[in-house]
């Protein structure tokens, strides 16, 4: 079996370069591209691989790249990197089939786990790998208010918006949010989104 390749597409050289170094430091092959179109033109098909793409890029954005790939090469798992305030976009990416998303700046372990999962074509996390019944059982432990908060958060709404929608203070929302993460055993927003999708609480 050929050695898997991790493709990195980011317009920012420092991010590109540092990611490649990080990946190599754990013994992974990394190839970098400065733009989505360069990647589409140059990546090797049929080789085990995964793609890390920045959501914001000039020209074709990470989201567009992911959607293009879904139409042509559904086999390639995609990890979306987002910056501050791009949660809504990340959720959109998840719904349309991205395997994972990571917020900048990120913990190396989170990233490497995500890469390994993607390469192994495994469900993203153990938590999510739990059966749907188990997941639905966890969801039932939520109070109705927590459930409301969870649905809005899973759609990528900022706390403030959730607070306004529900007529709560932001701090109250934060409290509810923490409770939701705890009850569902989600380690990140991405986990939460995946669980919601898995339980068909939100439509992909």
């Amino acid at each position: 079996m050929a050695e898997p390749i991790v493709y990195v597409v980011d317009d920012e050289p420092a991010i590109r370069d540092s990611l490649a170094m990080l990946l190599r430091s754990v013994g992974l092959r990394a190839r970098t591209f400065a733009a989505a179109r360069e990647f589409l033109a140059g990546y090797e098909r049929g080789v085990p691989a995964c793609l890390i793409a920045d959501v914001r890029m000039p020209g074709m954005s990470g989201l567009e790249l992911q959607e293009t790939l879904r139409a042509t090469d559904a086999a390639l798992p995609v990890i979306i990197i987002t910056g501050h305030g791009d949660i809504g976009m990340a959720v959109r990416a998840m719904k349309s089939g991205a395997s994972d998303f990571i917020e900048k700046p990120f913990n190396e372990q989170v990233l490497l786990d995500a890469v390994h999962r993607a390469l192994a074509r495994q469900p993203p996390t153990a938590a999510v790998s739990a059966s749907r019944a188990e997941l639905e059982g966890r969801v039932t432990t939520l109070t109705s208010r927590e459930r409301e908060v969870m649905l809005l958060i899973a759609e990528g709404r900022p706390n403030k918006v959730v607070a306004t929608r529900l007529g709560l203070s932001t701090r109250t929302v934060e409290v509810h949010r923490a409770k939701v993460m705890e009850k569902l055993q989600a380690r990140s927003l991405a986990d939460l989104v995946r669980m919601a999708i898995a339980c068909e609480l939100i439509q992909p």
Partner: protein
Amino acid sequence: MTAPSARPISTAASLVGREYAAPPLRIGRLVALSIAVALACFVSAQGALLLFPAGKGTAMLVPAAGIAVAALLLWGARLLPAIFVAHVLVDLSTGLPLGPALLSGVFATASLASVYFLLDQVVRIDRALSRIHDVVALAALGAGTLVLLNTVGRYAMLALAPDVPLPGAIPPDSAAALVAGVSVLLVAPPILTWHAPRREPLARSQRIEAACLAAVTVVIGVVIFWDYFMPMMGYAEMPYALFPLVFWAALRFGPRGVSWVVFAAAVMAVGFSSHGQGPFAARDPGEGVLALYLFLAVLATTGSLFAAVFSQRAEAGRLVRESEQQYRLLVESMNEGLVMHDSAGVMTYASERFCELTGYSRDELIGRIGRELAVPEEQAKWTERHRLRRQGSRESFELTLARKGGERLAVHVSPRPLLDAKGEYVGGFALVSDITERRRTEQALRESEEKYRVIVETQSDLVVKIGRDGRVAFVSPSYRRMFGRDESELLGQPLELELHEDDRKATAQAWSAVWESPHFASFENRAMTPQGWRWLAWTAHAVADDKAGSEPSSVIAVAHDVTARRRAEEQARQHLQQLAHVSRVSSMGEMASAIAHEINQPLTAIANYAYACLRLLRSGQSKQEEVLQAMQQVAAEAERAGEVMRKLRSFVRGGEGQLSAVEVSFLVAEVLRFAAPEARQSGIELLPAIAPALAPVLADSIQIQQVLLNLVRNAVEAINAGDSEVREVWIGAGRADGGHVEITVEDTGPGLAPDALEKVFEPFYTTKSEGIGIGLALSRSIVDAHGGRLWASAAPGRGARFHLTLPVVEERQSGNG
């Protein structure tokens, strides 16, 4: 229709005698003329001998003397040789020996020369014989001198050489001595008057009359002097019947007519008498000739005198008429009316124009006193003026006339008193002109001038007029005030303003452009005045002084002091800059995610490099080179993050603060203005409550506005985040202890948890999902830098309250402890 051309007024030359100049003659013509005159003398002498024989080879009439005098008077002394020759020849032809003939010729020629000298040089006789003076001269000096000289000559000859026969063989009696004189009286006038210039050719009726006169003369002459009629008319007094004919000729045909009638009468009288016919022949022969001569002399002289008198009268009358006509024309064509009056002011003449002015006809005016023409209130003035005129005053004056219809007419009167030889006032005349129009124009001009003077002198705009030569012709008082200069320093000098460097070029261009069409320029510049630089907005027009359409002769420039406007504009511009700045600050929230991204990038890169290095080092497989490179990248990215933060800081602070005295009410008002739209959108009311008479604070207005605006926006967002029904933000200001003013911003939002009251001022602490937590931290540092404080407290009930204190400029006012 053209005005009658002024005919030259004849001089009185014909009354005082014309200078006579003999015509210039070429030598050939002189010779021909000499021969002709000599021939005429000779032939007439021979003819006379034949026609008027007086016995013993003499003639009763010697025309040669008359011809000679006439020829000399007409052509000058140049003819004396011819006259001498003719004389000698005549004498020789009568059988006189050569010697006596030459002697006689010399004597006769000398006599004629002296007569010519007397007539031409001494009395300057007029050849036309149109004056009494000339007739008398011809008779006395011409005929008289010849008679005298002949008489003296004859007696001298008799005494010296009794045996020598006398020329003409006339006995030395008185009659013989008269013959030459009579010849001058009878023959010279027809020749002279024939040559005199004719005024105009005779009309047909005059020619018929002349023919009648000639016929009657011949008939009467024949009747008087032919003895055929003697049985009927044989009286010695009959020759006097010729006098009426002479008077007729004198009256109707002047000197020329008289001379010819007399000549004709003389020819007949002498002719018949020399043949023994007529009344003169009936007498004793010697006495008869003398009587004939005397009669003819009287007839000629009387007729000529009569003609001269008539001629002179007619000429004088003609001149007077001509002159009068000229003056009348002059008077009637004058724009001024002319009125003449006697010593009492009674009008005796009024020109057509004067009649027009008064509206009265001439008949209505003449006989009235001028005073009655003045309007009642000015009649006293007329009387006073007339009194002055009596004393010789010519001073002109203005008067209002009452025209015939009662209409008033302003006139200008130029009086001329007339004084007689004794200096007595006999009346005078006055030139009167209509000055209504002039007065109206003057009045309009005065009013217009006054109006413009008031406008120009009272307005604050500067007015300056500059001539073609660039020199100042007028400056308004406002201009003089503005530049602190006297009129005398400015007028006639080039316009010199100290202009701001940046404005000089444009100003010079505008000044030169105004002379070109469309003769208008508008520009602004800064000029130095005693009060400093002032902004002036100029509008300049080039104008022609006299008429529209001609080339402009000066430029009138009006400047308005727009310093205040310019300053306001400048302030507004600065304010806009400030506003833009404030809005940059206020959009800090929206900028936050972009800024976070900027910071996220280097942080992410740093984290990646660091983790990679850690792994490499832990694994023990690290290549030093690789790690070093990574660490360099880490340092570079960390610097990049720092750079982003620095940029953010300077972006927010807007440079170094400028502390100045600022009114708190101004600060609050400005902030409310900026925040109002957003608050209104959210249905939130902003309620200021500023304590009166607050001392100004020492602050950088912009920075404090940023802080306040940030607080107000936070308040608005807090209310939006909460669900309070009361949606109000209270902005209060009042005195605080320690020489400070305290400004509070209080909202009706969810409020702050007690532990958050301090935390909100920590950097990157935020309760807003999109905030980055810089605003309040920055605000606190700004306020600290001002020597004030910024803190939060829980408002009574709900919501948060932020407090801001700032030091006042002056010592705290008394009364506040």
